[in-house]
C-alpha cells in the first residue's frame, strides 16, 4: 500500500485550468454501462471483491445500539459461510471494508466489533452531515469527538457554499483543518456532487479535496436528490488520475447513495478498472457506500452456488 496522501499546496492555477466536456463524459459513461458484466465464476469473484469494498452503512434518525450491533455482525460475516465454502473463499477473510454510522453511534459500533474480536474499522460521517451548514468550530469538534470515540475513518462533507461561490482557497483551508482534526483516522471527503451543478465544479472540488489531503473522495451523502452517478464518478476518477500523475499519490474513491443491485456494483468495478486501473480495485482505494446492496450481492452469490434464487428471508439479515 502506498503512502497516505499528505496533500499539496493550494494551487489555484491548476483548478482554473480544469475543463470537462459534458457530452463526452456522458458518452463514456454510456459505453461503460454498455460493457458486458462478468458472468459465472468471474461474477462471483467480482461480487466478493465488491463485498470487501463495501462501507456497510446505516445513517438514520432511528439508529440505536441494537440495529448498529446487527450491522456490525453482518459486516464481519457479510456472506454466509455455507456460500463461501463451495467457492473456496471461506478462509480468505471476506468482510466488508468498514461500517459507517453517525458520530453518536460510533461508540456502539466500536463496542460491538471489539466484543466480536474484530478489527473492522468504524467510519463516521461528520462535519454537519449531510448539509454541512453548521459553524466550522462545531464541525471540527464533531470530527475530534468521533475520532476520540474510536472511529478510524471520518467521512466529512464539504462546505458547498464555499464551492458554489468559488472560494476554493477557503474550502481548501477548511478541509485542511478537518484533516488535522482527523489525525491518524483516514479522511473521506464527500463532495455532494448532486449539489455542485456542473462536472467542471465536481472536478475542481475533487482537486481541492485532494490538495487538502483527503484519503478518499466520495460522491455524495446519500441524502441529496441525485447521488452517485456513473458520469460524476468518471469525472472524479479522472481527477484522481490527474492528481496521481502530478503528485504520485493515489487517492481513493467512494461512490455512495443509491447503489442497490449486484449488477450496479459490477458496473462500478468496471468503471474503476477502466478509468483508474487494477490498483484501485481494493478497499484501500475503493469503497462502495451502501446498505441494501449487500443483500442483493449475497442473493447473486447464492444463485451462483446453488443455482436457485433466494428469497430475502433465506439469507441472514443485516
Amino acid at each position, binding site marked *: 500500500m502506498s503512502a497516505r496522501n499528505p496533500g499539496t499546496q493550494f494551487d489555484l492555477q491548476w483548478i482554473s485550468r480544469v475543463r*470537462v466536456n459534458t457530452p463526452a463524459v456522458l458518452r463514456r459513461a454510456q459505453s461503460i454501462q454498455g460493457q458486458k458484466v462478468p458472468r459465472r465464476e468471474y461474477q462471483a*469473484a467480482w461480487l466478493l471483491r465488491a463485498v470487501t469494498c463495501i462501507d456497510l452503512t446505516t445513517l438514520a434518525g432511528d439508529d440505536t445500539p441494537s440495529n448498529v450491533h446487527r450491522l456490525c455482525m453482518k459486516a464481519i460475516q457479510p456472506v454466509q459461510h455455507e456460500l463461501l465454502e463451495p467457492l473456496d473463499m471461506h478462509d480468505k477473510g471476506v468482510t466488508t471494508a468498514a461500517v459507517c454510522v453517525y458520530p453518536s453511534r460510533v461508540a456502539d459500533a466500536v463496542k460491538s466489533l471489539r466484543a466480536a474480536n474484530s478489527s473492522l474499522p468504524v467510519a463516521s460521517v461528520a462535519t454537519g452531515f449531510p448539509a454541512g451548514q453548521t459553524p466550522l468550530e462545531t464541525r471540527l469538534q464533531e470530527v475530534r469527538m468521533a475520532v476520540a470515540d474510536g472511529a478510524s475513518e471520518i467521512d466529512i462533507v464539504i462546505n458547498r457554499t464555499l464551492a458554489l461561490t468559488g472560494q476554493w482557497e477557503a474550502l481548501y483551508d477548511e478541509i485542511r483543518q478537518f484533516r488535522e482534526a482527523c489525525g491518524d483516522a483516514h479522511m473521506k471527503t464527500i463532495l455532494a456532487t448532486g449539489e455542485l451543478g456542473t462536472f467542471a465544479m465536481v472536478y475542481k472540488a475533487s482537486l481541492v479535496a485532494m490538495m487538502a489531503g483527503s484519503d478518499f473522495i466520495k460522491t455524495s451523502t446519500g441524502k441529496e436528490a441525485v447521488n452517485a452517478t456513473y458520469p460524476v464518478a468518471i469525472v472524479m476518477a479522472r481527477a484522481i*488520475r490527474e492528481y496521481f*500523475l502530478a503528485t504520485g499519490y493515489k487517492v481513493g474513491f467512494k461512490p455512495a447513495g443509491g447503489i442497490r443491485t449486484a449488477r450496479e456494483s459490477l458496473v462500478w468495478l468496471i468503471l474503476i478498472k477502466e478509468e483508474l486501473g487494477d490498483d484501485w480495485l481494493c478497499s484501500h482505494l475503493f469503497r462502495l457506500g451502501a446498505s441494501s446492496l449487500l443483500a442483493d450481492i449475497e442473493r447473486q452469490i447464492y444463485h451462483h452456488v446453488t443455482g436457485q434464487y433466494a428469497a430475502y428471508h433465506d439469507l441472514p439479515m443485516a
Partner: protein
Amino acid sequence: MAGNTSKAVPVLFQSMTYEPVATSSTATAQAWLDHHSRSVGLFINGKFVKPLDRQTCSILDSKGGTLCSTFCAVEDDICQCISSAVQGYKAWSDFLCSQRAKVLLRMVSALEQHGQCVSELCELCEATYSSSTLVRLLQYYSSWAQLRDSLIKNWTPVGVVAVVISDDCTLYSLMLKVLPALAMGNSVIAVPGRSTALPVLLLAQLFMGAGLAAGAFSVLTGSDVMLGVKVAQNSDISHVTFSGNKQHAVILCKATAGMGIPVSLSLSVGAVCPIIIFESADIHSAVDGVIEMAFKKKKKEVHLVLYVQESILESVVANLRLRMAGMKCVDLPSEKAKAQADAVVQKAQHQGAMLLQACVAPSSCSQYPPTVLCGMAPSSPCVVTPSPGPLLPLITFRSNAEAVTLGNHSPQGQAASIWTEDLTLALETAKSLSVGLVWVNSHSVYDPCLPVSGHRDSGTCTDGGQEGLYQFLRPSSFSLQRSYPVTLDYTKFGTAPSPPIVPDGALGSLKSYPHYVGGKACKSESGCCAVVQSLDGAGLLAYYPDGGQKDIRNATEAAIKVQPSWMKKSPSARAKSLHSLAKGLETKRQDIAEAINVQTGLSLEEANLEIELSISRLSDWAAYCDKVQGGTPPLLQSGCGLSFPEALGVVGIILPSKPPLLSMVTLLGAAIVTGNAVIMVPSQKYPLPALAFIQVLQSSDLPEGLVNIITGRRDPLTVALANHSVIKAIWYCGSTEGCQYLQYTCTSPLKTLRLFCQKDEDADYRGRDWTNPSVLEEMWRNAVQWKSVWIPTA
C-alpha cells in the same frame, strides 16, 4: 453449474480480470447458409440464381475455415442481371413515392424480424454491423422516398445504378449508396466486396420480401474488382457509384473512361484523419476518444494522426500511457501486416521516436500492441505512408493556426476529430479543415442526415443528407448521352502541334485580342497566336493567343491566391460583384453583340437577346449568393449538426461553342457564386464573345485572378488543366475523346469532373436549354462540396 469451476474464484478474486469474450452462437446464420447448401447464388430478378459452370469464390470465416462459396458472375450473368434491373427500374420507378416509402419501412420490420441472422452472418464474415444504424438508414431514406416529389421537384431518377464496393469497405458505406438510390426510384445492382457479400445477399432477400419490385435490387458477386468494372461498362447502366479504396477506384475510372456515364467516388478507406487536441480541451475525454478511435475498432478503415498542442503534450502522453496500460494486442490481418508494423516502429525508433506501448509485441502470432509513436513529424515515414496495425503517430503543434495547417497537409480529406472547449476555436477550425466531416469533442459519428463530400482525394460526390440524393437524380429536362470509348493514346492526346499561320497580306490588318490571366489582359506565354476564322471558313477575323500549359499555370497561381479570400467574402459582397459584372455587360453590350454577330452569324437582335438573357442570368446568380446555404441536420443523438456548402477551389471550365455568351456567364456565375475561382477556356471555334467579355471583367470589381480566360486549342489546354493538381474540378464540354481523356487521367489527384460530350460543335451544349432557369440548381450543386460538423451537447 455450482462447484465445477469454483476453484478459480479465489484466483479471479485476486486478479480481477475480465471474462474472456465468449464466441456467441451463430446458429441462425449457419442455418441460413445450410439452407443454401453452403453456396449462395447471385441475386438476380428477385431470387437467388445458381448458374452452372461458374467459378466459385470461397468466403472464409475469421479462423480461416470455409464458410460457404459464392459464384463469380460472368458476362452472361451480368447481362441477365442488367436486363432484369432495367425491367426492375421500370416497375420500381412507377411506384408512387408513398409506396416506395412503405416498402422501405417494411424493410425495417423485415430487419427487426431477422436481425439475429444478419448480425450473426456479419460476425461470421467479420463485417462491421449495427442493426440500429441500418434501421436508421432505412427510416431516413424512407422519409425521402415519401417526399421526393414534393421536396425535390424537376428531378427524376437516373435509371440503373451500379454500386461498386471494394473488399475493405463496410456494410454501412454500401447501404449509404444503395438505399438513397432505391429511395429515389432507381434500380440498383450492388457489387459487394468479399466481407460484405453474404450480408448483402441476405439483405437483398429480406428487402425483396418487403415488397421491392423484382430486379430493383440485384447483387452480383465475383472474385475481384473486375466484376465491378464489367458491370459498369454495360451500356444500360446510367450511373456508377463507388465506395472504398483508391486503387480500385482508379481501375474503375480508367475502365469506364469514355463510356459517357458519370462515376461518383467516395474513398473513405485508407484516408488519413487528423485528431487535433488543443490546450483548451478536456484532455481526459480527448485521450479517451483517441483510444476508442485508434485501438478499439475491430477494423481500421482510416489512418489516424494525433496532433497535440505543445503546452499539453506531457499531460496527454501521461494520460495515454496510463490508459493504455494493460490493453490487449490487436489482431492484424496477416503476418505480413505485422512485419510491416514492426518495421515502421523500428524505423521510427531509429529516428528518435518515443514509444507508448500497451505491452510487448508477441513474437509469434499476427498481433500487435496498441502503440503511440511520440515525437513524429509530418515528414516521418509512418506519417507519410501509413502502415496497417494499431499505430498512432503523435505530432506536436504550437498555435491554433498551425494545427489547421498540419491537419490539412494531407492528400485526403475524409474526416477529422477536434477537441477543445472553446466554441469559437472549434468552429473556426472546423471551417478551415479541408475535410468532409468534422467531429468536435467526439469521434466516429456517422449519420445519413449529415451531407459529407470527401474533400481532395477522398471522393468526388456527396453522400448523406438531401445533398447526397442528387447523385441518384438528374434534372428532368435532360437525358444521359451514352458514348463508346475509342482507342486513344493518352500520352499523345492534345500534343498535336499548332497549325502554322501562313503569312498573308490580310493578316497584318487583323485585330489582335489578348487573353486574361490574373486580372491582366496579356499575350500567351509562348507568344504564339491563332486566328479566328470567319463563319464561312474563308476569311480571317482576328488573332487570339494560343495558350498552353504555362498560361494555365500562371492562371492557376493567380486563382488559388485569390480564391480563399473570395470564398470568405460575405454573400452580399459577392452579390455586389456579380451585379457589377451584369452592369458592365450592359455597358459593353454593343461590342459584345457585334462579336457574337460576327462570330456565330446570329443577327444583332438575336445577339442582343442573348446578352439580355446573360445579364438576367448574372442577376440571378447574384441573388443566389445568399441562398446557397447549409443547414442544421437533426441527428438521433443530442447535439448540434451543421452542414456547409464549400467552394471546390479552382475550377477549370472548357466552354461549349453555343450559346457562347450565355453558357459562359451561366457556368462562370455558378462557380464564383459559391466561392470558386475559375479558369475558362472558350470554344476554339467561337472565342470572340469570350474575348470581348474580358473588357467587362476588367471593368468589374471582381478580385484579380478570380476569373481567367485562356484561349487556345482545346485539347492541349484540357491536358494542361488535367495535369495541374491545384485545379479541383473540371467542367468539360467538348469531344468524346476529351471526356475519355479526362476520365482516364483525372484520378491522381482526383478531380471532380462534369463532362458533357458535344458531338456536334454547332449543337447547343448537349441540347441543354440554357434559357431554362432550372439549370441553375444543378449548376450550383456541381460547384460545391459539403462539409458537416457534429457538436454533441448534453
